[in-house]
Structure formats: C-alpha cells, structure tokens
C-alpha cells in the first residue's frame, strides 16, 4: 500500500477562525477514501486544501503540510497541481460552451493533445468512460448547459478525466441528483479507482458505505475516526461515529 497523499498536522482557518484542526490522514493509492460528517464540519475545506483551490480566498490560511507523492504541494506549481489533482463540485458546472469544447478546453490549453484526430479520440474515450457517449454522440456541438443534471455531472467527470489526473476529489457529487443518476455515478467511481486515487466527500452516509474502501468521519473540524469502511460501519470505535452513522444526529 502506497500513500498517494499524506496530510501532516494540517489546520485550516478562515479569518483566523479554526475550521479544521490538527488533521493527520493518508490517502492510499487507488483507493476511494470516503469522508463523511455533518454540514460545516470542514469536509469541503479539506478537499479544497488538497488542490489549493482555497488559495484565492484571502481570508483563508493553513498550518501543517500536505504531500502528493512525497512532494509538498506548496512546491508544486499550482496549475500543475490542479491538473494532477482534479476536482468535482456538488453543482455540476459545465463551462458555457459545447460538450466537445468542455472536454477539449483543458487538454488543448495545456497543449498535451493538439491534433484534431487525437482530440476526437480522446473525447470519445472519456465519454465512454463515463458512459455518456451513446447519449450524446450525435450532439457534441450542442451547448453543454442543455443537458440534464446527471449528464452534466458525468460530463464534468469526463472533463476531469481528459486532463489525465492522478487524484480526483469529489465534493458531494450526487447531492443534486436523482437516485438513478446517483447509482450511475457511484458505479463509475468504483470503476475509476483502478486508475485513479479518489477522495469522496459525501453527505450521504450510505453512499460512503457503498462506495468507499476506507471512511473518515469529520465532526466540527476534527477527524474523529478513520478505518476500513466495513469496520467503521459495523463496529465504530468512537461514540460520536456510532451516533452519526446510525442517524442519531447530523
């Protein structure tokens, strides 16, 4: 078991107010790490720290370190970091352009795919990966905003796959979706872990139990417990964890 991401003594602050306290956690290569916890427990902050999406927020600051493959993420050029660590948001947000352009936007800009034929192939392969190809192959030039919510979220996943990341961060990717779309995305995530390392933040405890290999439980900015998903859900060590997964609060 190789650690893809190591988090050491991480504390995060907005306006000096601590929202994530002294976190130590590893993400193992090719696993799905589920992160559960009630609202405002710092899950999103945790994710956004991993690919430095919080850098633009002037009120944000952090202590401690995060390592990606043993490199401190502060030493990695921030655009490269975000290419290596892709992110998906709760609200699927296709860019205001066609389906095709949504996928090719980043690879073209980064310059690692330029030829038309390669772009076409890449679009087809990532769309097949998210099983969207058959649904949209006839309307690749249509604005992506016209797709359904579940399709948009899968397009956003395809868009991330197109930049060939090593880690993918999901922030409550199914919170706005119907059960069928949710099932599709869960299936997709399980398939993706062969090639990628995944961190899945979810407000849906059942989803974590279905999908993740290990699960971490956050509460009010603290990591309460992290363990193999089977163990955590069957015999949690901490009382808070048990209360949360049995639905007694949160």
């Amino acid at each position, binding site marked *: 078991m190789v650690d893809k991401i190591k988090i050491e003594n991480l504390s995060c602050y907005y306006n000096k107010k601590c929202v994530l306290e002294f976190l130590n956690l590893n993400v193992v290569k090719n696993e799905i790490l589920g992160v559960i916890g009630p609202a405002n427990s710092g899950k999103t902050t945790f994710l956004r720290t991993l690919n430095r999406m919080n850098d633009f927020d002037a009120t944000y600051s952090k202590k401690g370190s995060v390592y990606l493959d043993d490199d401190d993420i502060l030493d990695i050029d921030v*655009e490269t970091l*975000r290419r290596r660590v892709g992110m998906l*948001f709760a609200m699927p947000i296709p*860019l*205001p352009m066609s389906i095709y352009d949504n996928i090719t936007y*980043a690879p073209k800009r980064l310059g690692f795919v330029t030829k038309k034929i390669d772009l076409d192939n890449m679009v087809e392969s990532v769309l097949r990966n998210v099983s969207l190809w058959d649904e949209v192959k006839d309307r690749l030039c249509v604005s992506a905003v016209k797709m359904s919510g579940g399709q948009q979220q899968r397009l956003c996943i395809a*868009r991330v796959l197109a930049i060939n990341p090593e880690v993918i961060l999901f922030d409550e990717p199914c919170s706005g979706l119907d059960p069928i779309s949710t099932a599709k995305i869960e299936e997709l995530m399980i398939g993706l872990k062969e090639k990628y390392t995944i961190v899945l933040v979810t407000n849906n405890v059942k989803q974590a139990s279905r999908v993740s290999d290990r699960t971490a439980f956050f509460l009010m900015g603290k990591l309460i417990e992290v363990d193999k998903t089977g163990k955590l859900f069957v015999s949690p060590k901490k009382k808070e964890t048990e209360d949360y997964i049995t639905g007694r609060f949160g």
Partner: protein
Amino acid sequence: MKKVLNLIAEKIIFICGIVSIIFVVLIFSFLLKEGFSFFKHFGVLKFIGGHFWYPSSDSASFGVLPLIVGSVFVTIGACTIAVPIGVMTALFISEIVPKYIRDILKSLVELMAAIPSVVVGFIGMTTLVPLVKSIFNLPTGLTAFSGSIMLAFMAIPTIVTISEDAIRSVPYQYKQGALALGATKWQTLRRIILKAAMPGIIAAIMLGIGRVMGETMAVMMITGNAAHIPHSIFEPVRTMTATIAAEMGETVKGDMHYKSLFAIGLVLFLITFFINFIADLFLGKNKNT
C-alpha cells in the same frame, strides 16, 4: 376598499405607461413630418450625399455629408480610445483589485458620469485643446481628435459600469471550474469570464457609442465646427448634434433651414435607434443563455 385601491393603482400605472409611449410617438412623428416636408423640397439623395452645408446663403445647399462624416470621425475616434480602456477598467475593477479599492474605483467612475457635459467641454477647451495644438503643431487645437478624447472620457463611465455588471454576473462556478482544471487566473479571465460576459460587454459598448453620438455640448465647444469633409482627425469637424444646437436659434420657424435641422435630427435618430437595437439584441441574447 382594497379592490378600489388596486383598481386605481392599476389605472395610474397604465396611464403612465401610455403617456411615455405617446411622447415617443409624438416626438418621432414630429421629426418625420418636418423632415419629410424638407425632403419634398430638397431631395433625400442631395441631402445625404451633398458635400456642402451652406444653409443660409442665397443659393442654399443642404449637404449633410460633412456633418455625418464629422460625427462618424469623432465617434470612431472616441470609441477607439474608450472601448479598450473601458473594458479593461471593468475587468480590473471586478476581477483584479481587492474589494475596498473596488468600491472606491466604482464610485470614482460613477462620479465621472455625473460631470455635466458643459463642464467637460469647458475643461477640454482650456486644457486639452492648447495641448493638442502644441503637441501636434497644428494651426488649431479644435479638432476631431480633441473631441474624440473628451467624448471618450464621457463614454468610459457608461462602458465601465455596464461591462462591470456583466462581468460580475458571470457565475462564480465557471471561474472555479476553469481554475480546477488547471487554468491560470489570466487564462480563466480571458477565455471564460470575458467570453461569458461578452454579450453584456458588447451592449455596454453600443450604449457608449450611443452616448458619444448624441453628445452635443462638449463637441460643439471642442471640435471647431467647420462644416467640411475632413481629411484627417487633426482637422476641425462639425457634428450633426452640434449643427442642430448651434443653428436652431438663427432659423425662422417653418423655412427650409429650420426644416433641414429636423431632417438632421431624423438621421441622428435613425442612427441611435439602430445602435440601441443592436445593443438590445445582445442584451436579449445574454438573458436567454
């Protein structure tokens, strides 16, 4: 009781709406009436294509071409200056500076819009005109170029405020999505934010052009008012608006000269109407997507 109040309110709103429509229709039909009675005596083609504007000589000639060219010169000059500066200022204010500077800058720009155009013209006459004269070594500083600069100054607030609104109404998620895909801040600005805000920005530019086209006081004071077709922007020109304002007082109500000014007004109205129409097209498109 409530019903009666409702009814009264409804009627008042209805009347206000009708009144403003009636005003527009009245103004337009008045312009049309005077304009057409002018065209009956002096052909449209001779009017639009004529090179000479001698409205009060014995063999009067009403060639409006020099005035149209004058307006176009000044407008193009003003836009060349105002559009890049205005759009970049809008980008700067909405995306680059920290919040407290943004508020200061915005109020400054709004203040700029509040300066009366006579004051702008007056300041331009005493500062800019001599400067242009000495820098370019011209016989006079009262040129289309000076007029362009002053008009740009007046169009910039319009362009900045409306573009800024458009840029800031681009959903935050677009920016976040692009950044998360590894785009730099600059690439996100240019490829995503500018692109998404483009309809609004174009509408802002159109409204800015409309403002420049219709401006009278400042151009009258600064452009030199020579009604001839200029060869460069460093020559005096006269615009359509300035002509109407300057000559209205010398005409006799009902004579050809008087009517010719209405004909100019009609041309001006059509041009600004056309510009507003294009702006509406873009604004409408913005709402649909």
